[in-house]
């Protein structure tokens, strides 16, 4: 095996992992606080990507400039979804939330199919095709930007959770629901806020992914199993874990694609997922 090919695969894998981290951080927050699996995560990402796409095509707003707007919009969407639908309809049962978010993802994906049709759309911005030499690999600039942004996003979330008043309340609810309620925290509101923040991350992720990716109604499915794998791998609710998990998964996908070929290479992620669920369901970093 040629060292340059291997090196390039490693670099591409890490960059891929950066993209995955963008999607997984929000999921790990929701998972860590609410202890639920948000099956609609992929389809909400898809929705955000269409948002970023139409902001560029119709309003000529550059995806990177649209980040604040999309973050706010997706936070509002997540908050309202939790308050109006998920929290109300689930009767407090985890499995119901899983089923509701499955229903939600089916609806969102097919509503998107209805309005946007099935073809995938890509955008062109001045920097989409710019390549940067990085050791043995030539990588697209947008991928490098999204990798850096994933680090920033993880750090920002960790800071928010550790240092702000809302963050303290979120941690309290995540650790001990009843206790948090007893000291006067509005637990339902914190759930909705956490869900909103988790979905807001998708707003940023969508803007960062779209310059180097495509969008189609089913694009979210690409990320669903991957993001779950990362979250379980990294340990629920851990941002650093999600980042490391994402890099491991990105590397796995890139290297197993290299050694096993395109078709069989995808199996690596599902196998890791099964093994981690069986042997370390609390994640590799938890004792």
């Amino acid at each position, binding site marked *: 095996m040629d060292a340059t090919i291997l090196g390039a695969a490693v670099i591409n894998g890490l960059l891929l992992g950066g993209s995955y981290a963008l999607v997984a951080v929000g999921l790990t927050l929701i998972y860590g606080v609410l202890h639920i699996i948000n099956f609609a995560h992929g389809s909400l990402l898809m929705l955000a990507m269409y948002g970023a796409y139409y902001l560029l095509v119709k309003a000529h707003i550059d995806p990177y400039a649209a980040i604040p707007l999309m973050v706010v919009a997706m936070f509002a969407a997540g908050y309202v979804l939790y308050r109006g639908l998920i929290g109300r309809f689930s009767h407090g049962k985890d499995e119901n939330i*899983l089923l509701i978010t499955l*229903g939600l993802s089916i609806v969102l994906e097919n509503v998107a199919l209805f309005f946007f049709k099935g073809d995938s759309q890509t955008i062109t911005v001045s920097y989409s095709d710019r390549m940067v030499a990085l050791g043995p690999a030539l990588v697209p600039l947008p991928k490098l930007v999204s990798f850096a942004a994933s680090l920033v996003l993880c750090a920002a979330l960790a800071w928010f959770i550790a240092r702000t008043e809302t963050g303290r309340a979120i941690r309290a609810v995540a650790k001990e629901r009843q206790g948090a309620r007893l000291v006067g925290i509005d637990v339902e509101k914190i759930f909705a806020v956490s869900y909103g923040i988790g979905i807001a991350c998708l707003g940023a992720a969508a803007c960062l992914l779209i310059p180097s990716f495509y969008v189609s109604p089913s694009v979210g499915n690409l990320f669903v199993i991957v993001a779950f794998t990362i979250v379980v791998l990294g340990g629920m609710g851990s941002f650093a874990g999600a980042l490391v998990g994402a890099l491991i998964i990105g590397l796995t996908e890139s290297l197993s694609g290299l050694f096993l*070929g395109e078709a069989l290479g995808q199996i690596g992620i*599902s196998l890791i997922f099964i093994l981690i669920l069986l042997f370390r369901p609390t994640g590799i970093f938890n004792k």
Partner: protein
Amino acid sequence: MNWKIPAALLAAALAYPFIFRSNFAINFGVLVLFYALIGQAWNIAGGYAGQLSFGHAVFFGTGAYCSTILQLKLGWNPWPGLAAAAGAGALVGALIAALSFRFGLRGSYFALITLAFAEVFRILTNAVEFTGGGLGLLIPLKRGAANFQFAERIGFYYAILALAALSIGIAIWLKRSRFGAQLAAIRENEDAARALGIDTYREKVKVMALSGALCALGGSFYAQYYLYIDPTVVFGLDKSAEMLLVAMIGGTGTVYGPLIGSLLLTLVGEVTRANTEAQGLSLIIYGSLLILIIGFLPNGLVELFKLRWRRKARA
């Protein structure tokens, strides 16, 4: 036990093709019974035993590929192939269950691992040579009941009727048997069930094998009806979701829930297909129904019938 309902349903189902003779009507009947079968298969694990699965397509695809490969590569007749498919489905069900339950996976975690297994099977069949890879497998046309390729659709109708009736018969038996009672105990409170002396691990493996076998029968039937299978269709998340939707919307843990769910969903599917060009409209309705059912009618549509009966009984 009231035998009037199953007897009346069976009589109606037997008579249906003589009343509605068009190809469209027969095909509609086949679809209703087909989804009732795989919905019931899901229901036996997900409803009766409370083991939520997001990856039941793994059994469906196993059945479809098992009978098809036996036919194409080893020259088997598809009828014994159907039986072999059930065996393979049971085996895969037992293996996945043994692995997952040995390591104590429950609830949402179990749902996720079934999804992952379905993915592994999909990717494997997509990648290896003898399953035809991504192109899928085509069963050559050889019309005749002996080849499980009926010249008339009505033959398929009665074949799937027999399979669906078998699944409903099993569901009725579960309501009356010790095994079914043990499953209900596991669903309601697994720790309490174990404290009562139920070997919860063994019962859960058994029910997954049973569910897997029924689901594989559906997969094998699907292959014979359409004479074509590919990895995405038979192992994809869409198939898993279809079974779950049929059972959840009709009513989980009930005998007739999957049949009611299948009737409604097939009706919605056919009506939207006939009246609009838009893709995915039926799925929008299915997904919304799932959310509404969980929110307002957690026991499914079958509850509406029960309420009416009770009201009648009181009056």
